[in-house]
């Protein structure tokens, strides 16, 4: 069960690393987050720990419901063109992610903890989206994926107190919200969310 | 430190006799050039005439011109009291070479400033050249003192002459040093080839140009001081480099002998200068300047000779 979900996450992430349209990207992200939520749920079911449920709930609420809403809203409202200009084209992106993941798994060949491996894969995708895409909104998505990776890590690692985890996830949400708001502002003032227009600050 | 009365006498002698010696020098030159010169007492007459005259001062001139000549003369006379003439001894007494050399700086600074004082072109020219030449001559002075110190381990000119007096034949560095000192004398006393003391073409003058605007007694003082200066330099040459025969005891015979030998040496030196002045021509300022590096090179050779040989 969990293995399957992890595979889904992995596949979705690899798929996301090359898509051209924000909608698809968001879709992939929702899918992935849902999978993570389910994993947490399953673990909670297995171990009977409360905080897994909480984590699952928070993840699903924030990442599956609220985030996509924000993103789609902004995409609609700002009527930004759905294309997101790639700095690295899809082909190379795929290859990059592939090699990255390969290296990561190679490094981690000792540990049999698939959560961590998948998490690292997610990090790589997130970094790629942040570095190799131009739109601010894709950077935000990239960061969210990055954070998904963190969540996976967290799940896999030793259980820590409820407050802490709540704090972590909550702040992830806050961050996402703030980014959303900023994207609004940016779009208002720059009338584009293309990071190329971030050139005023010199000297 | 005891000051021997005899020093005093011989010094007075210099002061009194120096115009005579200059007269002799002029006479020698005249003869060498083949005409009958003025009498050897002529300098005395000149001084007397000048002293009789009144003085005219430039309206630009300052305290430098007013007190300058007197101080110049005073300084030169003072130096005469710091050198042995034909008697020397090993007593711990005055006569430090440094003070002697620096005492002439008083003369120098005043003459140079007098040149600048009476806002005339020629004065400025003279001072400029004088200052330049003396700047170039400074290392020579140092070299000579160094040499004498190495030779005798002493800075006191009396002691130096005493120590050197009983050396009969000198090494070659000694002669090199002597040559250098002669060049130094010519430079410091504004003789040919550095300057022409008896020219009347202002553009070539140095010493004369500076005192162009002095007259009457002032001029007399400056002239006299220049006479004394030359003689003092010659005496330093004689007593430091060829002091053999100088009286070292206060016996009458020794003194008489010393005096005789001294006079001979002095006349010989004057003859030498006369020959130089009649045969050489005054060289351009910068040609003159080129002589100094050459002499400094000589000096270095001498010093190294002492250590290597």
């Amino acid at each position, binding site marked *: 069960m969990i293995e399957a979900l992890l595979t889904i996450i992995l596949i979705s992430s690899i798929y996301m690393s090359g898509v051209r349209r924000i909608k698809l990207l968001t879709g992939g992200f929702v899918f992935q987050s849902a999978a993570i939520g389910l994993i947490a749920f399953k673990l909670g079911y297995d171990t009977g720990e409360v905080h897994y449920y909480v984590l699952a709930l928070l993840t699903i609420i924030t990442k599956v419901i609220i985030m996509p809403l924000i993103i789609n809203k902004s995409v609609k409202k700002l009527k930004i063109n759905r294309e997101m200009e790639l700095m690295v084209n899809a082909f190379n992106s795929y290859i990059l992610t592939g090699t990255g993941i390969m290296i990561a798994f190679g490094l981690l060949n000792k540990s049999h903890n698939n959560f961590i491996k998948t998490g690292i894969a997610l*990090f790589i995708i997130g970094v790629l989206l*942040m570095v190799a895409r131009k739109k*601010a909104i894709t*950077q935000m998505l990239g*960061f969210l994926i*990055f*954070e998904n*990776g*963190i969540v996976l*890590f*967290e799940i896999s*690692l*030793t*259980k*820590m*107190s409820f407050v*802490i985890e709540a*704090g*972590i996830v909550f*702040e992830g949400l*806050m*961050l996402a919200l*703030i*980014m959303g708001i*900023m994207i609004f*502002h*940016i779009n208002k*003032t*720059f009338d584009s969310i293309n990071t190329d227009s*971030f050139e*005023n*600050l010199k*000297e | 430190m005891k000051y021997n009365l005899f020093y005093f006498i011989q010094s007075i002698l210099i002061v009194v006799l120096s115009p005579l010696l200059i007269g002799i020098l002029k006479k020698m030159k005249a003869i060498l050039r083949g005409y009958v010169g003025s009498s050897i007492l002529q300098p005395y007459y000149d001084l007397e005439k000048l002293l009789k005259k009144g003085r005219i001062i430039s309206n630009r001139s300052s305290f430098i011109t007013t007190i300058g000549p007197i101080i110049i003369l005073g300084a030169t006379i003072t130096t005469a009291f710091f050198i042995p003439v034909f008697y020397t001894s090993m007593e711990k007494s005055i006569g430090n070479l440094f003070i002697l050399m620096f005492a002439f700086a008083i003369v120098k600074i005043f003459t140079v400033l007098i040149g600048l004082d009476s806002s005339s072109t020629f004065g400025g020219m003279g001072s400029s050249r004088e200052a330049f030449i003396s700047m170039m001559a400074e290392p020579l002075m140092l070299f000579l003192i160094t040499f004498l110190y190495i030779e005798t381990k002493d800075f006191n000119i009396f002691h130096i002459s005493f120590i050197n007096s009983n050396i009969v034949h000198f090494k070659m560095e000694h002669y090199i040093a002597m040559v250098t000192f002669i060049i130094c004398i010519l430079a410091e006393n504004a003789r040919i080839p550095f300057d022409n003391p008896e020219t009347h073409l202002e553009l070539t003058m140095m010493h004369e140009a500076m005192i162009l605007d002095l007259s009457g007694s002032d001029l007399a003082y400056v002239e006299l001081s220049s006479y004394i200066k030359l003689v003092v330099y010659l005496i330093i040459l004689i007593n430091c480099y060829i002091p053999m025969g100088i009286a070292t005891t206060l016996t009458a015979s020794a003194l008489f002998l010393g005096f005789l030998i001294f006079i001979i040496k002095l006349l010989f030196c004057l003859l030498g200068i006369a020959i130089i002045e009649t045969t050489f021509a005054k060289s351009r300022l910068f040609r003159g300047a080129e002589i100094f590096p050459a002499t400094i090179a000589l000096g270095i050779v001498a010093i190294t000779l002492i250590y290597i040989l």
Partner: protein
Amino acid sequence: MYIVVLGILFLIMTMTPLISKNIKISGLVTILGSISVLGIVLKIITLLYDGGALNYFNEFFYIDSLSILQLLIIASINVIVSIYSRKYIENEIDEKVISNRRGKFYYFLFNFFVFFLMFIALTNNIVAMWIGLEGTTLTTAFLIGFNVNKNSLESAWKYIIICSIGIGIGLIGILIFVNAYTNQDANQILKWSHLVKNPNIQNIYAIKIAFTLIFVGIGTKAGLAPMHTWLPDAHSESPSPVSAMMSGVLLNLALYVILRFYLIIKHVPGLENTKWLFIIFGCASLVISSFSILRQTNYKRLLAFSSVENIGIIALGLGVGSKIAVFGALLHSLVHAFGKSLLFLTAGNILSAYKTKRIDKINALIKTMPINAVFLILGMLVITGAPPFPAFFSEYYIIVGTVETGNYIITALYSFCLLLVFAGFLKVFIKIVFNNEAGEKYVKIEEDKENTLPLALCFISIIVMSLFMNSYLSSMINNAVSIICD
């Protein structure tokens, strides 16, 4: 229970702007609150005068001499800045730059920000420290983008993206770190005081990776080069009080968090050389910032770069690790907090008078704004380490430390960078203060007198520091040094 009181205070301070209509009230409350916080902190200092540690809520909060220093910095700078921001916000509102609502929003965020800072300094839980840092990111993001325009938004975006990535990496590091300690009971595992006492680690390899990730990740927040790129923009665009707070307090607080982790792994055999991370990144920051300072046209950016440089100095001092160097580093973090706030606040005054950040637009400040000019010069002297101000001693002690431990190359590099920074500062500030263009008429600006009380407070506290240098303060710092060094 000081902690509870503090909590209540902060609750009041944060809630007032939301409740009260009047901006003045919230300003006043902020000032009073900050003063009482300072009072409490001072009380705690007296409790901890001779070393030792306090802990509350079964060691969730843990105060030792190291955190005392941070607390002192936070509280005192907080007082100064909140006094400053009252006038500042009022001016902004009067000049219709911001609405009343945003003014209150400012107070809300500001107090929240301070709360998080206090939280970091107080807490004992390593993940809670992380949460605090993240919290500061969240709060300051809006403060940076406070007056909404292109530049501020751009800088805010840079800030939030870069910092949250850094923080994320830091979190990964922390998770790995914790994971390397498993097999201990769950409610102790996250306690710093517990970890530092029994460093029995299963997996050195994991710890190495973890600490590196933590260092670089949180180092981003601390503004160590080359992760510092958010810093100049953020500091130059945010309102002056916020920049003062950030560069003075936030940066070395982030460094403090790194230091906590470093203290845990320091004694583990085989990890001694992790100190080179401090040294290398410190030197990188020094070099990059000192060269960048030489060519700035915007004085707030200049100050921001100088913050990077000072953080580099502190990191270097901590990395060198001989007693005297660590003393220097801690002292320097203290001095830098005050001096840099002084400079930033003065810069704020100048900005509000001249309405420009460009250096070449400002001349003959000594004639137009004499008071601020004097404070500017004094601040410059403080930051560039001129005696008798304490910065001189801290920098000198760090030099001594580097020489003592035989890192002569680092000594040379360090001194060279100091020289460059000095030259850059001198060039700019002497130009601003004294240079007057021919034919221009300089008249006194009446804004000069406004808002000089905080500056005076800053300067006075620096003087007080240099007076208590070799009695009270040094014993306090020495306790902290003894925590770090042995």
